[in-house]
């Protein structure tokens, strides 16, 4: 159902009319995840659970709560055309296109609390429980062994807000809304204006340029911001998109997401 294998890392090689034509598209997705400094916790645990949550999750006893969020999308598109000829061999390399998409979401949460210090990385496991730790972030090896998230496991990489409006208020106060809602952020309920879209048989919610998947967190269904699922079609582009051309294809770039115009709207494409 959730095939992150194609999203965590992709290596595509195609041969068409010309020998030696190589189109290599690699997508490097680096996610730096965090501890959950702010919690959805609003009370409801047992006595022991509450003690544990307080000591482990940072109850902010010293009232110092420092958060810095940097969402820095970097995109480099390099198109190289190399033609090498001699009398005997003809090698034509066209469209040697390397698209390096680096998405770095750096969120550092420092909770100063007696006996507790945050760490610039957090670890969770996929369904099989395999865990690997990268120093600068969480790397979870999931059910299918891919770096990223497990097939059914997930990496907690964001905070939980009661609603989209609640996130707006919090983000507006704390870090500024300009960057949009970060991947990994979770909402207790989807944005009011969201619509259901489908990719590879999986339903997502879409609103204002962000895609949400249903996940189970805290024993409740929660909506988690994810990368735009390839193949999804939306009827209207979000605001702030630019027209560009990638690999000869005219697309609209909206943040880190590319949309290709199709008959019934705009389709998410990945290069």
């Amino acid at each position: 159902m959730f095939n992150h294998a194609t999203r965590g890392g992709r290596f595509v090689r195609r041969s068409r009319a010309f020998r030696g034509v190589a189109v290599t598209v690699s997508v490097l997705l680096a996610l730096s995840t965090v501890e959950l400094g702010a919690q959805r916790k609003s009370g409801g645990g047992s006595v022991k659970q509450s003690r544990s949550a307080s000591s482990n999750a940072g109850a902010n006893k010293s009232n110092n709560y420092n958060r810095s969020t940097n969402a820095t999308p970097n995109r480099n598109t390099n198109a190289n055309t190399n033609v090498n000829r001699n009398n005997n061999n003809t090698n034509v390399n066209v469209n040697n296109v390397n698209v390096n998409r680096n998405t770095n979401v750096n969120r550092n949460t420092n909770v100063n609390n007696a006996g507790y210090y945050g760490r610039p990385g957090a670890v969770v496991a996929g369904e099989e429980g395999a865990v690997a730790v990268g120093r600068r972030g969480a790397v979870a090896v999931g059910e299918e062994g891919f770096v990223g998230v497990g097939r059914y496991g997930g990496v907690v990489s964001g905070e939980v807000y009661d609603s989209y409006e609640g996130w707006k208020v919090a983000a507006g106060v704390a870090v500024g809304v300009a960057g949009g809602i970060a991947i990994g952020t979770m909402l207790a309920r989807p944005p009011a204006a969201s619509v259901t879209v489908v990719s590879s048989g999986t339903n997502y919610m879409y609103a204002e340029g962000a895609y949400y998947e249903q996940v189970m967190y805290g024993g409740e269904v929660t909506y988690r911001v994810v990368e735009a699922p390839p193949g999804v079609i939306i009827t209207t582009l979000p605001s702030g998109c630019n027209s560009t051309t990638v690999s000869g294809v005219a697309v609209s770039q909206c943040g880190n997401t590319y949309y290709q115009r199709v008959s019934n709207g705009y389709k998410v494409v990945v290069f």
Partner: protein
Amino acid sequence: MSPRLQHTLQLFIVVVVIAGAACNRQQALNPEAASAKGDALLREMSKNMAAVQTFAYTVDERRQIPGGTQGEKKMTRQVTVRRPNALAFTGKGDRGETAGWYDGKQLTLVSHRDKVWARGPMPPTLDEALDFLSDEYDVEMPTADVLYSSPYDAFMTKDTTGGWVDTQKIGDRSCEHLAYRQPVVDWEIWLSTDRSLPCQLKVTYKQIPGTPSTLVTYHGIENPQVTDDTFKPKVPDGYHRIKIIRRATVIDPKLDEPAPASADAPTPGGKQIK
């Protein structure tokens, strides 16, 4: 009414009031005695709960957030436990209808409102599972304390103060009222006078804005007949599986040292379930 009868009635009322006051004075214990009595009652409850291998109960949970925008949330939960490693529950309330199963290996959760389900790994014993639920899956379960193999140890810490308060009626049951304070929470428990089993539990979360509280009322604790099937997940046809998200694992600051030679090499700190 004759004056004599009137005087008799007045005398009766005075006697009742005095008797009531005397009774109250009997209930008021000095702090040491109240602490000792509360401790003894709590240990008895702990012993009783630990002794029963299979039990089930129904509770009404009310989560109150004074002055908050969310107001009060209610849920009725039915829980069946088989020590040492099985638990099943259903819940119905303001947050929809849910069900869950723990079988010593996995946790399966179903949301009937959303027609979805999720599954994740779990430790092999109930004690570990209750910790894991909270620490890793962030599941809040206000009744968890009484499910441990030693409820007393789940409730009590060295910095806990309090003890027996009085005897109260919870529904039609006579229950001993105990109240305690801890740095993080204040909690009260009412134990049935006759069986020393939980009648009611209230936890007030002092470090959460608004100091919300959860009030859990038990409708009896029973010894049902259960089979392995009781703890087998029952996911209705057509429900979609979704990911279960685990909380980030807190890593000891001592481990925050120079990076290992290989970025791929696992480092200690992440909890693993084998």
